[in-house]
């Protein structure tokens, strides 16, 4: 497939950009922070996003969705990344929807997908147990008990864990790894929400002898590692798309500043020391655009995705977005260090997205392993 957006995708991009520019620019995030919003995102804005059809993008048409695929949702995430807009899009509309679409039973699809598409039901992937991402090291157990399973364990830093109606939980079962759909109001689930450094919220979630029916199993019993990896790769690609938007926006703000800020009687952008760094960053961002588009298209074309490409993309985007955000602060000088100025928000959000589903070093290592070295 050609590495360009088609007509429909270009329209989606335009409409996402104009909606977010007017309804949820960076000042929206600042307001949520300053008002110490309890959830860290706006339910009203989410309802508007649902009206725009965004949570329905990945859901097939037969379940009330739009069927625009991964490239579609990735385009929207790039735009929310640009505006640092907090929303359940990544966790529910991309990772969550992918989980149900890919592995859900007919019953799970029918009960969840229409509500996901409508934005009424929020999901969260609960997979991390250690501070450094190590999703295959799972101590949470699901023990068979007649027609049910009893789940016990603790997941940390669950993105959207503070608002999810249903958790997708990775567990050890008798002979391997299995994923379960666990409603948050099940007995024994306790959610400890917290605010992160980027003012988005997350939660630690404990499962104490939580009983779920065997129909809550998502995907194959004992053989769920492949599904977990697939969902993580979906999330990694989504986080990469968000970082792409973030990096482009912070770079464009920096360029504007280089052109308008004067010292020694000239714009600081006329200094070669800064020009060369800006030009290098421009090149890195062009590389990132190609990667994200290729990674999204590959998810649409390859049923099992391409783990090597997902890690390559996540690693490169984590590194480049971080470079863009730190260069932005340096080039803005003192004002870049102030809380009044928005630039710092980009570095903070970037830190969260880089860590989400494995940071750039984790993926550098995984990329090399997948290539056999």
């Amino acid at each position, binding site marked *: 497939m050609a*590495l360009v957006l088609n007509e429909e995708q270009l329209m989606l991009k335009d409409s996402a950009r104009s909606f977010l520019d007017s309804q949820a620019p960076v000042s929206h995030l600042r307001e949520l922070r300053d008002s110490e919003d309890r959830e860290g995102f706006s339910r009203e804005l989410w309802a508007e996003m649902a009206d725009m059809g965004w949570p329905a993008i990945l859901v097939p048409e037969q379940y009330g969705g739009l069927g625009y695929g991964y490239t579609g949702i990735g385009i929207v995430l790039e735009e929310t990344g640009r505006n640092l807009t907090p929303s359940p899009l990544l966790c529910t509309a991309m990772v969550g929807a992918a989980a149900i679409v890919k592995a859900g039973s007919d019953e799970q699809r029918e009960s969840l997908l229409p509500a996901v598409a409508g934005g009424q039901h929020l999901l969260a992937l609960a997979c991390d147990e250690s501070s450094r991402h190590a999703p295959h090291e799972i101590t949470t157990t699901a023990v068979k008990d007649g027609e049910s399973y009893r789940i016990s364990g603790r997941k940390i830093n669950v993105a959207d864990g503070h608002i999810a109606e249903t958790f997708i939980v990775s567990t050890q079962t008798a002979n391997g790894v299995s994923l379960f759909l666990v409603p948050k109001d099940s007995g024994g689930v306790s959610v400890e929400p917290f605010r992160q450094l980027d003012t988005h919220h997350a939660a630690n979630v404990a499962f104490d002898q939580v009983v779920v029916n065997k129909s809550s199993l998502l995907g194959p019993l004992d053989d769920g590692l492949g599904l977990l990896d697939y969902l993580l790769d979906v999330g990694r690609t989504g986080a990469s798309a968000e970082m792409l938007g973030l990096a482009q926006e912070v770079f464009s703000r920096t360029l504007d500043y280089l052109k308008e800020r004067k010292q020694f009687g000239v714009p600081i952008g006329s200094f070669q020391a800064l020009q060369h760094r800006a030009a290098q960053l*421009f090149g890195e961002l062009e*590389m*990132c655009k190609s990667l994200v588009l290729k990674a999204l298209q590959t998810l649409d074309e390859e049923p099992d995705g391409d783990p090597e490409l997902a890690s390559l993309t996540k690693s490169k985007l984590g590194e480049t977005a971080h470079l863009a955000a730190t260069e932005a602060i340096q080039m803005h000088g003192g004002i870049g260090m102030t809380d009044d100025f928005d630039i710092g928000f980009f570095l903070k959000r970037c830190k969260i997205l880089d860590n989400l589903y494995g940071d750039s070093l984790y993926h*550098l290592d995984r990329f090399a*392993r997948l290539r056999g*070295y």
Partner: protein
Amino acid sequence: MADNGTFRRETRDWLEANCPESMRQPYNYEADACWGGRNCKFQSEDQKAWLQRMASRGWTVPTWPKEYGGGGLDLAQAKILKQELARINARPPLESFGISMLGPPLLKFGSEELKLQHLPPIARGEIRWAQGYSEPNAGSDLASLQMRADDMGDHFIVNGSKIWTSYGDKGDWMFCLVRTDFEAKKHAGITFVMFDMTTEGVSTRPIKLISGKSPFTETFLDNVRVEKNQVIGEINDGWTIAKYLLSHEREMIAGAGILASGSLPVSEVAARALGRQNGILSEPMLRADIARFEIDERCLALTIERARDEVKAGVSLGAVASMFKYYGTELNKRRYELLMSVSGQEALQWEGGEDGLGELPKKWLRTKGNSIEGGTSEIQLNIVAKRILGLPG
């Protein structure tokens, strides 16, 4: 799309039938590349046949119009041909500055007469071209060039010297920037001319590099007669042609950053040389550097692909040749630094031997010139900063 499916099948069949087995592997030595020209000595019958067969289809220059010796393919077909060539690891049938540098500006700015005179011999590999751009006092500041062309009515008499002429001693013809107006501002007095290098008064002298090899010459012009009908574009408007050619030259050089089809990835070279422990390359620091390099290698390949797809779709990235040139050459330098590290002390031997011993250090040294030739990395960054990013000064 159905047409392209047919085109792919037919192309694949034709290549299967016509690409000799020995041409289906990467170059091992510099001499494996075929550069054509009047004095071309083919390394083998296969090499000769491969060039002639490809030239007969116009596939040495797939997108050039048929009347100029090209294949007349559209961009989508050219991409398919490229993929099919890569699929069988086919060597390029012809390396040529005529194709990669002179062709594009000649097609765009040349008169019909000049196109018909020069393009078909380039496509067939009959005439080898050399580039006369840099001068001893005009490197990064190319437009300050001083080679002097005096107007004698129907011809010029040219005097001066050029430097860094790639394979100047092997060139049949030269395309060359000369100064025709000595009063005008430096960019405004330049003319783009072409002449046969066997003309009286042309001589070359090889320049020995740190690699011990001499791929470049100095070129001296002493009262050389150049016909006015061998000017591309207008007299004194050569800078327009020069810049257009440079952007193509830079794209060509950037391609060095991409792994040649059929070559072993750096990680595989390293795994064979150093071994693995538990599936992991034994040297962890080198492993991380290699992984970063291979990520960037993939980035460049995908971005070049995207740039081509965008041209096809009618949305152009703009003046990105400089970005590709910078990225590709810095990447190629990293590749050879890594290969030297992987080979360790074995790579320190200078004299040639079996297994190509002594080749690697010379290639490594040669790559140091990648970020200088065709405009230094710093010049490329200047161009990106000013033309793409719109930074002042």
